[in-house]
C-alpha cells in the first residue's frame, strides 16, 4: 500500500485531529479515551520481532534462528521488522506506531506465572499484590457509570490486570455472552459482604449485556477481519465497540509465544496473525471514528533469551520490545535497544525502561490521572502519547 493511499484511508478520523475543538474533546481525561491491551501470552521473542540486524552479537548468539539481514524490513537505526510484520509498515510510516524497547523490571523472574503476575499487579519482583493495576485504578477513580463496563476481556478466561476491582466482563463472542448473561440475576437487597460481592458481579454482567446490544442492527464494517483466532478476537472487540458500548479498556490476547522449540515457523505465523489482526483493528477503529482516541498497547510476561537453545528455539528471557499504536501515538523508537554484549547472569539483557513507566504513560498522559497512587511510586511517563 502506498503511503498516500494509506493516509487517504484515514478519512474523517484523521481530519478530526486537525480540528482544534474536536481534538480537545479527545484530550486526556479519566477513561475518556480507550485503551486496548494486547497480551502476547508465553513471552514474545522481541529480538526476532524488532531485529538488530546490524549487531554481530545477534548473529553469533543465534546461528540458526536469526532473521537474515536481507529478510528484515528496515525501520532505521540498524533495526528492522520480522518479515511477517510487513502489514504494519504503513502504520510505522504514518508515525502511528511506537516501538518501546528494553521494557522490563529489576530482579526479573523467569517463571511465566510469577512474571505475568508481576506485570498484572504492577508489583516489584519480590512483592505480592493481589489487585491488578487497572483494578486499582478503577477502584481509586471509577470510570463513568454509563459505560457498559470498565473493561471487557475478549477471548481469555483470566482477567489479569483487572483482577480484584471494577466492572469487568469476559466474553469470547457477544451473542454467547448475551445468552450466558441470562443466567445472571439483577441485584436485589444485598446481604453480607460475600453476597453483596456476588450480587455486584451479577449486576455488572447484566448491565454490560444490556449495553452490548446484539439484538439491534450490527455495525456494518467494511473492514475484512482475518480468519485467524486472533482475527476473530479483533472482530469481537470491534463488534462490542460497534454496538455503541462505551468502555475504558479492552483486552485481547494471542497465545503460543512460548517458543522453546522449532521457533522460526511458529513465530513467523504468530507475528503474521498479530500484524494482520492489528491492521484490521486499526481499520475498524477508523470506521468507528475511534482511532484518534484509542491507544493499543502490547505486553507480555517477558521476552526471550538472546542465545538460541538446542531445539531451534529460545528460553525464557527478561526485557522486551512492545508495540503502542493509535491515532494519537507518537510513532518511532522509544527506550533503548537491548545491549547484547552485556547480558546478566541468566544470559538475558538488562532492561532500560521499567514497565511501570508504560503504565504511568497510560494513566497520566492518556487519561490525565495520577499514577503514583496506582503504581505505589513515581514512574516517569514515556513520550509515546502525543
Amino acid at each position: 500500500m502506498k503511503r498516500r493511499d494509506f493516509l487517504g484511508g484515514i478519512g474523517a478520523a484523521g481530519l478530526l485531529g486537525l480540528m482544534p475543538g474536536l481534538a480537545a474533546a479527545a484530550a486526556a481525561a479519566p477513561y475518556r479515551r480507550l485503551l486496548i491491551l494486547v497480551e502476547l501470552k508465553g513471552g514474545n521473542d522481541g529480538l526476532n520481532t524488532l531485529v538488530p540486524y546490524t549487531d554481530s552479537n545477534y548473529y553469533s548468539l543465534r546461528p540458526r534462528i536469526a532473521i537474515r539481514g536481507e529478510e528484515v524490513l528496515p525501520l532505521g537505526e540498524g533495526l528492522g521488522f520480522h518479515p511477517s510484520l510487513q502489514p504494519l509498515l504503513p502504520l510505522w510510516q504514518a508515525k502511528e506506531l511506537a516501538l518501546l524497547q528494553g521494557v522490563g523490571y529489576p530482579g526479573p523472574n523467569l517463571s511465566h506465572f510469577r512474571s505475568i503476575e508481576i506485570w498484572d499487579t504492577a508489583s516489584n519482583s519480590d512483592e505480592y499484590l493481589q489487585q491488578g493495576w487497572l483494578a486499582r485504578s478503577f477502584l481509586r477513580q471509577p470510570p463513568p457509570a454509563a459505560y457498559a463496563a470498565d473493561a471487557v476481556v475478549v477471548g481469555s478466561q483470566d482477567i489479569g490486570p483487572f483482577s480484584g476491582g471494577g466492572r469487568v466482563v469476559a466474553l469470547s463472542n457477544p451473542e454467547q455472552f448475551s445468552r450466558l448473561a441470562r443466567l445472571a440475576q439483577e441485584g436485589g437487597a444485598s446481604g453480607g459482604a460475600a453476597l453483596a460481592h456476588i450480587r455486584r458481579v451479577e449486576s455488572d454482567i447484566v448491565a454490560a449485556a444490556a449495553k452490548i446490544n446484539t439484538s439491534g442492527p450490527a455495525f456494518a464494517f467494511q473492514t475484512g477481519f482475518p480468519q485467524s483466532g486472533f482475527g476473530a478476537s479483533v472482530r469481537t472487540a470491534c463488534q462490542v465497540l460497534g454496538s455503541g458500548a462505551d468502555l475504558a479498556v479492552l483486552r485481547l490476547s494471542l497465545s503460543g509465544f512460548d517458543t522453546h522449540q522449532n521457533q522460526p515457523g511458529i513465530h513467523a505465523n504468530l507475528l503474521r496473525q498479530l500484524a494482520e489482526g492489528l491492521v484490521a483493528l486499526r481499520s475498524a477503529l477508523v470506521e468507528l471514528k475511534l482511532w484518534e482516541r484509542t491507544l493499543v498497547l502490547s505486553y507480555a510476561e517477558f521476552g526471550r533469551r538472546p542465545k538460541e537453545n538446542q531445539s531451534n528455539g529460545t528460553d525464557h528471557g527478561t526485557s522486551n520490545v512492545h508495540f503502542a499504536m493509535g491515532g494519537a501515538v507518537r510513532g518511532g523508537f522509544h527506550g533503548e535497544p537491548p545491549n547484547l554484549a552485556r547480558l546478566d547472569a541468566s544470559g538475558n539483557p538488562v532492561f532500560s525502561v521499567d514497565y511501570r513507566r508504560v503504565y504511568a504513560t497510560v494513566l497520566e498522559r492518556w487519561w490525565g490521572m495520577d499514577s503514583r497512587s496506582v503504581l505505589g511510586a513515581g514512574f516517569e511517563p514515556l513520550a509515546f502519547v502525543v
Partner: protein
Amino acid sequence: MMRSIRFRNSFMKLLMRLLAGLLAAASLSVVAAPASPPMGVEDARHLLSRAGFGSRPGDLAAFSQLSRAAAIERLLADTPRAAVLPIPPELADYQPPAKLRELSDEERRDLQRRTGIALRVWWLDGMLAAESPAEQLRERMTLFWHNHFVSSVQKVKSARLMLDQNRLLRQHATGNFGELLHAVGKDPAMLVYLDSASSRRGSPNENFAREVMELFTLGEGNYSEQDVKQAARAFTGWSIEPATGAFRWRPMIHDDGEKTVLGVSGRLDGDAVLDILLAQPQTAEHLTRKLWREFVSPTPDERDVRRIAARFRGAGYDLRVALRELLGSRAFWAGENRQTLIKSPVDFVVGSFNSLGMEPPDAAALAGLLRQLGQDLFAPPNVKGWPGGESWINSSTLLTRKQMAERLLRREGREDLRQVMLDPAYQLK
C-alpha cells in the same frame, strides 16, 4: 379447636418424652450428661458444608439426628490415614533431573503434561471418593495445608514429589501441626519449591527461612530481617538426593556456627529453629486466624482467636483441639456467620456433586474446570497460595460456574433445582 387439642396432645407427648429422658439419664451412670437435642437439617448442612464439600443426602439425614457436639466428635474421630487411592502408574517412578535432561524438550513437556494430569486426577478422585464426613474433613484439611505450605508443580517440576507432599499433608491433616511443620521443612517438593535444596553454608538461600516465618508460622511483623538471615543459616544442609528425590541431610554444607533467632542463641539447626517458632504464641494465633477464615467467617474475632490459640498451643498443637474449639464455638453456629464464606471452586464442583448425589464426569474434565475457575490444584499462583474469598468470583468465573450448574441440571433432568443453583446465594456456604 381441633388444632388446640392436637397441640395439647403433642405437648403432653413431648413432656412425657422429656420426663422419660430425664428418668433414663438419672438411672444411667453419673458421667452421662443429659442428651443434647438433635441439631436438625439446617445445622447439619451448615456443619457438613464447612467441614467437608457440600453434604450428601445420607450424611445430612444421619448428622441431623446428632447433637452438635456428637457430630463434631464424629468428624474428628480417627479415620484411616493411609493413602486413599493407589498411586497411578504414570506417577509410580520418580524421574530424576538427570534423566529428564536426557529427554528432548518435546518428550519432557509431554511427560510433564501426562504426569500433571494424572496427579490432579488422583487427588480429585480421592476427594470425590471420600466416603464419610470425617474423610471429607481430612481432604478439606489436606487442601487447607496445600494452600498453607504452598508448593507448585510448575516450579517443582516433579508430579511424583508433589504427590508425596500431598500424602504427607493428608497424613498429618488433622494430626499435630508441629510434627507437620517439621516434616514439611524436609519435604522434597518444599525443598525444591523454596530453594532449600540449593542452600549451603556461606551462601544460604533465605527463601524458606523467610516464608516459614511470614506465612507458615508467625505471620508478618513478628520477626526481623536478622531473624531471617540467621534462620537461613540454620536450614542449610537440608537437601535432596538427586537420584531418588528423597530428603538427605548433608552435614558438609550445613552452617553449624552460633546463631540467634528470636532471642534464642546456640548452634541452631533447622529443627531447633522450627521449635523456636512453635514456641511463639503468634504462631498459634496466626494458624487459628487462618483456620477461622477457613471454617467460621472472613473476620476472625480476636478474643476468640487468642483463647483458642492458647488451648491449641497448650495441647502441643493438636489440630483436633483447634478444630473442636472452632467448630464448637458460638461464632461457628451464629446466624450472622452462616452463608458468609464464598465457595472455592473445589467446594463448588465437588460439593455440588456430593449434595446433589450426582455421578461426576471423569476427574480430568473436572481438573480442567477447576483451572478455569481459578483453582488449578497443585499449582497455586504463588507462595501465598490462592487468596480465596471474594477473589474467587469475577464475571468470568461466575458465568462459568452458572454454565456448569445449568449443564448439570439439564444432564440430570433436575430443572426443579434451577432456582437454587442459579441463585447468587448458591455460591455461599
